[in-house]
């Protein structure tokens, strides 16, 4: 996108913010996505830490995990929705007959995802302070911002992977919007350190940016990070995967134009 095309590019990005926002505000279930499921999940786990009489740091370890996952889940679903809304409305071809690129599509939906998931983060961090005495601000503003940015970008990675699957498998892939993120629960050390995972899961965990981001943030609460430069690894992997996904998205979109998937999914 050249500088002369910047206003056009920005309005195309904003189009997807507009679309997701309107659909979100008309859908009662989006309120559940923001306020109900994350809060219920948070309190279930939080109360478990109370029952197990974990100290503040250990509770923090687990609460950091559950809050991170809630933020990622809400943000990634918005990116995934950008194609799913079109798919469900059978309007996919109208989006792709317009002069837009994958960058507009993804970044617009990601922005609304960031807004929605930031609300989730605020809500849960307030609850964690009030109900369980866990202070999310202890690491300081900058580490917190970096951590959140990492989570948002991880969500973008997952959302784009869902979009790629939708363009390849159509309706069969819609379940990925809710299930892909669950894999992270298992391998990224949400409720436990990755060191306890059986082989080969620790190797897989080391290939996922979230593992490093969690280690980074938890290091401020007294948990030693295994990797040297957690932030470097985390953001480095995110960068590599975003580039790979950008190529892959281009390839699957070209394939969808070749095989007629765009038409088939619009009928």
């Amino acid at each position, binding site marked *: 996108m050249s500088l002369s095309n910047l206003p056009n590019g920005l309005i195309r990005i904003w189009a997807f913010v*507009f679309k997701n926002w309107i659909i979100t505000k008309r859908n009662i279930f989006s309120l559940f996505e923001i306020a109900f499921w994350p809060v219920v999940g948070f309190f279930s786990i939080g109360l478990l830490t109370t029952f197990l009489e974990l100290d503040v740091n250990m509770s923090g370890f687990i609460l950091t995990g559950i809050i991170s996952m809630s933020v990622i889940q809400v943000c990634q679903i918005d990116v995934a929705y950008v194609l799913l809304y079109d798919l469900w409305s059978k309007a996919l071809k109208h989006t792709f007959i317009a002069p837009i690129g994958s960058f507009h599509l993804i970044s617009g939906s990601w922005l609304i995802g960031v807004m929605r998931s930031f609300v989730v983060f605020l809500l849960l961090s307030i609850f964690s302070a009030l109900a369980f005495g866990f202070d999310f601000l202890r690491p300081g503003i900058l580490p917190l911002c970096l951590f959140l940015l990492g989570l948002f970008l991880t969500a973008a990675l997952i959302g784009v992977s869902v979009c790629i699957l939708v363009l390849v498998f159509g309706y069969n892939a819609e379940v990925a919007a809710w299930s892909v993120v669950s894999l992270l629960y298992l391998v990224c050390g949400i409720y436990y350190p990755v060191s306890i995972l059986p082989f080969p899961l620790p190797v897989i965990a080391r290939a996922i940016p979230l593992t490093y981001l969690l280690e980074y943030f938890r290091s401020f609460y007294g948990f030693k990070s295994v990797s040297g430069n957690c932030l470097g690894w985390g953001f480095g992997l995110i960068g590599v995967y975003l580039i790979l996904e950008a190529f892959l998205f281009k390839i699957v979109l070209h394939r969808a134009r070749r095989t007629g998937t765009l038409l088939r999914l619009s009928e």
Partner: protein
Amino acid sequence: MAFAIEAEGIFKTFRTGWRGKRRTEALKGIDLRVNAGEIFGILGPNGAGKTTLLSILSTLLLPDRGKVHILGIDALANGARIRERVNISSGNANFLWSLTVKENLHFYGMLYGLVGRQREEKVNALIGLLDLREHQNVLFDRISTGMKQRLSLAKCLLNDPEVLFLDEPTVGLDPNAASRIREEIRSIQKERKMTVLLTTHNMREAETLCGRIAFLKAGEILTAGTAQALKQMVRVGDVVRIEFQGRISEDDILRGDGVINYSISGNLCEIVVDDGEKRLGSLVAVLSQGGAEIRKVTLRQTDLEDVFIEFAKRTDSDMGLRL
């Protein structure tokens, strides 16, 4: 002459089933040239390949082989550039269900880079043009099929396209709504002088809207030309249907000019002539002079349907198939 649309040797096969082993040949070497500013119709039955062809020309679908130039630009290599200057509207229109008519237009307007007041004015103008004002704040899934079709037309005018693709724009509409949409297409094209490529299986629609028409069947263009030229090319003749009392002799019929064929059954006589309007008067006069009392005369002129059937017959017999 500059062609707005130029396609050469377009082939497209769809592969389905396990490992894509089942193949459907949708287009078999299509050549097409559409002049700037004309309404060109692609006529054909369901499954002829009309939508596939339109989708390729509008860059939604890539062909297996062939060349496509839109407005002089290689459309296969410059899809994004082409998409700025063309648009498409399809029958059975679908848009985002949870957005109102107006919100849908704003959303797609943004995709075409329309900002602020410019977009607001454009959306309002299109809502007015296509008489959508009453329904502008109604959710898409609550409006009628006719309204959806009008929204589809409004959406495809958002970027002031130089080439407009209309895929069966009146399919599924009642006759009144269909006629209204046709009127709208005609007046919009006249006002904006855009090139329109329209597919339909409705012969009358093609005849009333299109300057030139191509017949597409089983992925091949059988013939193309103006409606008049196509009718003359086939020469199946016009049918003069005469109800009479008394007697009509075969000699009297054959004395008439331009008679191609005839049949008499009871008090009904059907005569096929080369040009119904031209021959009708003399034919009735000849038969009256022969002693027949003419009660009722009707003329059925050759229409595009006859032409299409004739061409389809020829092609099928060439291929050894039965129609």
